[in-house]
């Protein structure tokens, strides 16, 4: 009997010893931004009534800091927490967009914060909580790109008119249907935001919250324009030009960016994304 107990204790000790991993500081790590050549779009589905969303914005920002040139953020205000009538008199500013609401409904997003990384599944679902974004970002950064994208912009200050040209080039032969979506995002919008993290800002109403990367419009709709279908040969070039009127809108051109991405229609996964400032 004693021997049995001793064996059990020995096994338990060995189990515990093997089953623990103490991490020593520094706790932060980094990633190889040179691996692969695909850029990554983090879509942060958010709302001004969502108390956990400032924390999610920090998560997205932290990830972007790792490879600033290869990670692009788009904050999509849609759904219940973007409602303008529910959260009190301070929360009347309407961040909703047609494209954002369309995507929110298409992906059945309930509750915020949620998000997508290049709209891939990655074994954990296309729409995930912020703490799953990092692993998808790492995986996507390592994937070779099938497409090169470039975005040029010109803004006519007199007519308040944006003209943007998105050019692309298929690096490898692919098959399927491919669409291009072009959006405008804006930084530095100061409007109230609900918050429950006192370390980040005022709780529960962060009245001078600075909203970043806010989706303003899908210039060519939620699902964009086709740029290739069937067996698309390596080397195929494409170019699309769009205009966007800034009149009668409270958008500040100097704070705005054009975000363009190409996705595969079959699973909606994003193959490449690019960003350029509206006013250089």
């Amino acid at each position, binding site marked *: *009997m004693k021997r049995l107990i001793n064996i059990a204790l020995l096994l338990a000790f060995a189990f515990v010893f093997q*089953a623990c991993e103490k991490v020593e500081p520094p*706790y*932060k790590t980094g990633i190889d931004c040179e691996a692969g050549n695909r850029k990554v779009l983090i879509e942060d589905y958010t709302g001004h009534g969502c*108390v956990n969303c400032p924390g999610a914005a920090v998560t997205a920002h932290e990830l972007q800091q790792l490879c600033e040139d290869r990670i692009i953020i788009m904050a999509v205000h849609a759904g219940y927490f973007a409602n303008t009538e529910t959260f009190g008199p301070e929360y009347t500013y309407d961040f909703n967009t047609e494209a954002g609401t369309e995507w929110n409904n298409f992906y059945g997003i309930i509750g915020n914060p949620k998000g997508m990384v290049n709209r891939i599944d990655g074994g954990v679902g296309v729409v995930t909580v912020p703490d*799953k974004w*990092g692993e998808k970002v790492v995986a996507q950064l390592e994937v070779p790109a099938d497409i090169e994208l470039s975005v040029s912009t010109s803004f006519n200050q007199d007519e308040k008119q944006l003209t943007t040209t998105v050019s692309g080039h298929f690096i490898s032969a692919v098959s399927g249907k491919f669409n291009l979506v072009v959006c405008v995002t804006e930084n530095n919008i100061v409007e109230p935001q609900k918050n429950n993290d006192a370390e980040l800002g005022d709780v529960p109403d962060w009245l001078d919250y600075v909203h970043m990367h806010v989706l303003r419009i899908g210039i060519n709709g939620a699902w964009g324009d086709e740029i290739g279908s069937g067996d698309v040969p390596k080397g195929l070039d494409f170019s699309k030009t769009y205009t966007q009127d800034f009149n009668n809108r409270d958008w500040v051109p100097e704070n705005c960016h054009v975000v363009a991405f190409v996705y595969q229609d079959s699973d909606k996964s994003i193959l490449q994304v690019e960003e350029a400032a509206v006013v250089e």
Partner: protein
Amino acid sequence: MKKSFIFFASVLFFALSANAQLSGLVNKSQVHGSFEADLMYYQPDEAMGITDSLINGRNFAFNGFARITYSLGNFSAGLRYEAYLPPIAGFDPRMEGNGFPYLWASYATEKFSFTVGSFYEQFGNGLTLRSYEEWTLGYDNAINGVKVQYEPVRGFILKGVYGVQRFFWMKYANNNRGIVKGADMELNLNDLFVSMSNSKVRLTLGGSAVSKYQIDNNPVYKLPRNVGNVAGRFNLGIGKFNFTSEYAYKINDPSAINNYIYKPGESFLFTASYSRRGLGVFAMFKRTDNFSFKSDRSEKENALDINFLPPIIEPHTYMLASMYPYATQPNGEIGFQLQVDYKIPKKTKLGGRYGWDIHINYSQINDIAREQLNDSTPLNQRGTLGYTSQFLKFGDQIFNRDLTIEVDKKFTKKFKGYFKYIYQEYDIATLQGHPGEPEIKAHIGIVDMTYKFTSKKALRWEAQGLFTKEDNGSWAAALLEYTISPHWFFTLSDQWNYGNEETADRLHYYTGAFGYTHKTTRLSLSYGRQREGVVCVGGVCRQVPASSGFYMTITSNF
């Protein structure tokens, strides 16, 4: 002809023999099962803000399950079918779907047993491991893998588990969540040693170790792939006294719940009780520090919990008393509970003809005291050790206080009543995630009377009041229930938020229901309004949105 006859006779013999064997097997086999179907029909209710567009065509919701167990001698196997089409409002939308999430087979002898497939298990109080299912919460963290149990001698039990936990309908693949492995040992000294078998001192010792493995693919932080959680426990009985305790320690486990801090976690439970005829005294102390333990470090909702942190608060079931239920705080809480149950004997001057039952319970739970690591690091900063905390020091923030005084009195053979007073202090900002809202201080009074007309017919009525200046203000509630045993019941109830500051929100939440029971099958149908709130079982909670409509439940078992 002769050959044909021999062939025919042989076939008949084997057929009869097989049939006899089969018949023997069938006779020895046992099949048990249970079934439940909950159907909700939602209707718009303008006063409650429930519009057609909010319902969005999803007027029906359905939660259902069927559980079947087959056993033959030492062998048993079973399955559970579940359907959430779509889930009833307030249940996690990730539950939507249907299928067989729970399949298992088991073989058990007197000393050894093993289970493959899905299983539930608990080590000690659950501080290291508890997998369980709670239908009312929509909670299921079953482990899918292998479980073994070995009892080489009476009083010495070894258990081992290895598997992955259920995560709604998502199959385990490519490290999409962690792998759980654990072992538990328990020694019951009174069973183990003959010399102690009749002792007034009863002692059980136990220990468990559980580890999870999850891939580290976080680009920002270095994360431990293997996180261990170990615990030791005892249960000591000396005459009418009983003492139990468990202490658990967990190595660094940065997660979404604890804001990715690297501080080790610990949890401690201690209970003492005394019991004699007519008197029971119970005391409990608990401290939890950074002790969420999930098999996916990014999960923040009620899923994939490997362990369980027992609550130390009086559970309330009455309509208004359960309005502010306590949700266990895995990041840190310290508290105690004291309870006295006393029966004033019948046929005494004070007790009268039938006696009185008196129940008093007081519990208080605070945040743990936390101190900054240094002047430049804010409390609980990501990517640090988070904070320091003295073991027995109470933090200033009170999460919950509850004083319950209950008197049960039988007046006559046909008439009895329960009288309850509850005082609650409730940190709604922390416990329900409503930052900035003031602490609720509520006085609750409940009268629950039952009159039996005959041995089969009874009328029960409740009158309740919740008085507070905070949150939605004061409430009143009443209930009438008429029962014709063993088949029928009819109830009418109403909860009225008469103290709401907004006149338009002084709503009545009325419900009418009836039910019929036939043997082991029960059908109930109700119509009315469900107020927004929180439902908690064992400190695990889910939000319930306001709804209006019909609700039907059928349950059966065999």
